[in-house]
């Protein structure tokens, strides 16, 4: 047993970014040999806290202690030397290099004249791999390994120093059940060796299995720490979302408009299979499921970004085959993609230019784009969606996330689509704008649009949808009306349990 009370402790951490206060007076600690789970919704500040712990962000205020020694972390390398290591969710390995080289990347052992000491490198790497019970050698090339084994290499990296605390960020996101067990064994071994573990995950079942304590963040503030044995999922959820989950949506009338979009037996490779559903004018249809369940792939296929292997798409009573996004736009489909910066916006262009992008072909006088026509459209949708921007010239990259998202939505509304598909409507958006966008989606439905919302956040899907389709591994497992859905049966449906 270690002599220190805590392996890693932070006190009163404040971190502000230009648009948001990401962390507000957060305190948190991990004891040696403990698994401390960190929970919170997307945007609650988990990843910021993690980056502060690992030396990637400097906090504005607050103090960090490693084994009760005050520490100021300037870089991830410095944090690692002091014994704090972050295992990234996205693996950051040099694929073309050997396992040993990856483990010691940046600190390869040297001989005279700066030559790499290969013998020592492979011996040291071998020792670490054995500690993790890995069945591959140090000279294996990383690209030949499975994702689970790559993750082991990431963990091995953490062990080149005497690690005091290891932070796992959603480590099981892409692992099979078997691989998960191997990972849990490794975590237990580390625990036994007196390492403090910070474990970040959305999966309650895992957290209750392996953690000793659970801390919850909400909207950048610390909401408390619970002993795992003394609590239950309900209590943790309440802390996370700040209210008990009252999921009934009493009084909301289910739409009776005509069916606008109907799809039958849609399949696309191994992404999704035999998917059938329909959307009516005036309703919001929610798609809920884990990442990789096939929700986004369906949206992309409907929008012509993926080729369907079979199935029928009927729009307003007419069967259509969508071959390209351009074609989809002409047919009256619109897609607000899941990552607005990568897929939705041209950040270096002005608000107006982004807003009119799909239709400038129709806004010309003679050979030139009509300035007045463009500004009229921009003004109209700026007012309609209450987009806050100093003017149409403002570069979209300078707006807040919520306003950026409204630009993307406005861009498609201006096309007067028949079906509006919104993938992750509020990812990375602060809480206030979130509510605004939810209301907006409801209002659009009330105005007669057929709206499809895809989300990974349960509160979001529950609050905006009239009907919810649950997906698990590429298949629809169940369809709920707003009246019959509860948190429990929804979670079961997306875990393949029902």
């Amino acid at each position, binding site marked *: 047993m270690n002599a220190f009370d805590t392996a890693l402790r932070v006190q009163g951490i404040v971190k502000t970014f230009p648009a948001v206060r990401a962390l507000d007076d957060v305190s948190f600690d991990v004891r040696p040999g403990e698994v401390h789970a960190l929970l919170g919704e997307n945007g609650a500040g988990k990843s910021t806290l993690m980056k502060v712990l690992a030396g990637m962000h400097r906090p504005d205020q607050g103090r960090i202690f490693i084994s009760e020694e005050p520490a100021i972390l300037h870089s991830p390398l410095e944090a690692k030397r002091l014994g704090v290591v972050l295992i990234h969710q996205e693996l950051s390995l040099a694929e073309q290099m050997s396992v040993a080289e990856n483990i010691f990347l940046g600190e390869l052992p040297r001989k005279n004249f700066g030559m790499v000491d290969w013998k020592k490198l492979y011996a040291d790497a071998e020792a670490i791999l054995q500690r993790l019970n890995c069945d591959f050698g140090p000279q294996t090339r990383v690209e030949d390994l499975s994702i689970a084994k790559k993750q082991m290499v990431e963990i091995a990296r953490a062990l080149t120093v005497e690690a005091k605390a290891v932070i796992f960020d959603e480590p099981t996101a892409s692992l099979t059940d078997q691989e998960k067990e191997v990972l849990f064994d490794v975590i237990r071994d580390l625990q036994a060796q007196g390492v403090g573990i910070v474990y970040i995950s959305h999966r309650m079942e895992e957290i209750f299995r392996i953690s000793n304590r659970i801390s919850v963040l909400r909207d950048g503030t610390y909401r408390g720490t619970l002993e795992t044995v003394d609590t239950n999922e309900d209590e943790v959820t309440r802390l996370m979302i700040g209210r008990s989950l009252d999921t009934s949506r009493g009084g909301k009338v289910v739409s009776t408009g005509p069916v606008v979009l109907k799809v039958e037996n849609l399949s696309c490779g191994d992404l999704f299979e035999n998917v059938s559903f329909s959307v009516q004018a005036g309703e919001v249809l929610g798609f809920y499921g884990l990442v990789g369940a096939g929700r986004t792939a369906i949206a992309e296929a409907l929008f012509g970004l993926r080729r369907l292997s079979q199935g029928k798409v009927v729009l307003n009573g007419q069967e259509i085959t969508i071959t390209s996004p351009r074609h989809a736009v002409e047919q009256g489909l619109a897609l607000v993609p899941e990552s607005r910066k990568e897929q939705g916006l*041209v950040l270096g262009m002005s608000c107006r230019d982004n807003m009119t992008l799909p239709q400038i072909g129709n806004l010309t006088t003679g050979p030139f784009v009509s300035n007045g026509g463009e500004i009229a459209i921009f003004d109209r949708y700026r007012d309609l969606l209450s987009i806050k921007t100093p003017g149409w010239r403002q570069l979209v990259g300078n707006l807040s996330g919520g306003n950026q998202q409204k630009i993307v939505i406005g861009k498609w509304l201006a096309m007067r689509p028949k079906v509006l598909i919104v993938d992750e409507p509020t990812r990375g958006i602060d809480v206030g704008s979130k509510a605004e966008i939810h209301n907006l989606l409801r209002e659009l439905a009330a105005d007669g649009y057929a709206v499809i919302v895809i989300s990974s956040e349960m509160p979001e899907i529950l609050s905006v949808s009239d009907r919810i389709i649950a997906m698990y591994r590429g298949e629809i497992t169940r369809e709920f009306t707003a009246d019959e859905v509860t948190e429990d049966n929804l979670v079961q449906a997306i875990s393949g349990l029902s």
Partner: protein
Amino acid sequence: MSIMNKSSAARLWRQVVRHPIWFFVLVIFIFFSLATDHFFAFHNFQNILVQTSTIGLIALGMTLVMINGNIDLSVGATLALAASLAVDIQGWPVFESWGDWAMLPAVIAALASGIMLGALNGIIVWKTGVNAFIVTLGAMLGVRGLVFIYTQEQSFYAMNFAYSDFGSSAVGPLPTLAVIFLVFTVITHFLLARTVHGRNTYAVGGNRDAAVNAGIRVGPHMVVNFMIVGFFAALAGVTLSTQMGASTPNLGRDYELWTITAVVLGGTKLTGGAGNIIGTLGGVLAIGILRNGMNLMQVPAFYVLVILGTILIAVLFLDKQVNRKEDGELRV
């Protein structure tokens, strides 16, 4: 009155920050005017314009391609092919009875060759997805090889003096070649700044995925821009051969590098999405004035290269300092 001055000063400063190259052009213009006797003369300005028109024409097309996020390294070779075609074809026996009109099919063939090579580059980039740098690097080597095969390593001379007379003719006070360059500069500026094609050029270069999602047909769009730069490279080949009354198979060597230098000096980003013709014009003039001025100061040619290389890096470094936008940039 003072308010007017203040706001116009602010506007001027904004323009300087947006186009730092024009500030640089102003500085070197003043410097050479004071430092040498022969620089500040209308006759010399005419010279500079004619000298820069070759690189300048190519740079107009290159700006579009580079804002698209692509690049075209084959422009020098295309220029040589077009020049050879233009000079050779007008001497073909079939056109003997055409007189001066023999120049017409020759020039049309030359321009068409540029457009077709551009289309070929663009289609390969579109259909194979291979990086434009690699595709046009291959085209640069291959087309140059074709030029040597076609010309059998010989220079061609225009037998009709009307051809080279055109290269030294003038429209009013301005040399014809300078007028051609300026007219195309204005046209390309409006194409880029005001038309749908121009807007799509920025969108495709700024975020290709977003452009696809907005229903822009990215592939054909890029092909058009490659055709435009091919056209300009061929046009530059024609104008250059009228200046010399001849073509050589080695014509246009390193022009791709000069062109890219001018475009980048003018503020176009190698990563695409940003840039404009006003900046490119500044970049072209900066190089033209520097070469002309140093020549007049009798700086040996090799030193001129050293100085130009240094200035390229220095200007881009300053630009990065002034327009430091990417705050989250990783330190390397």
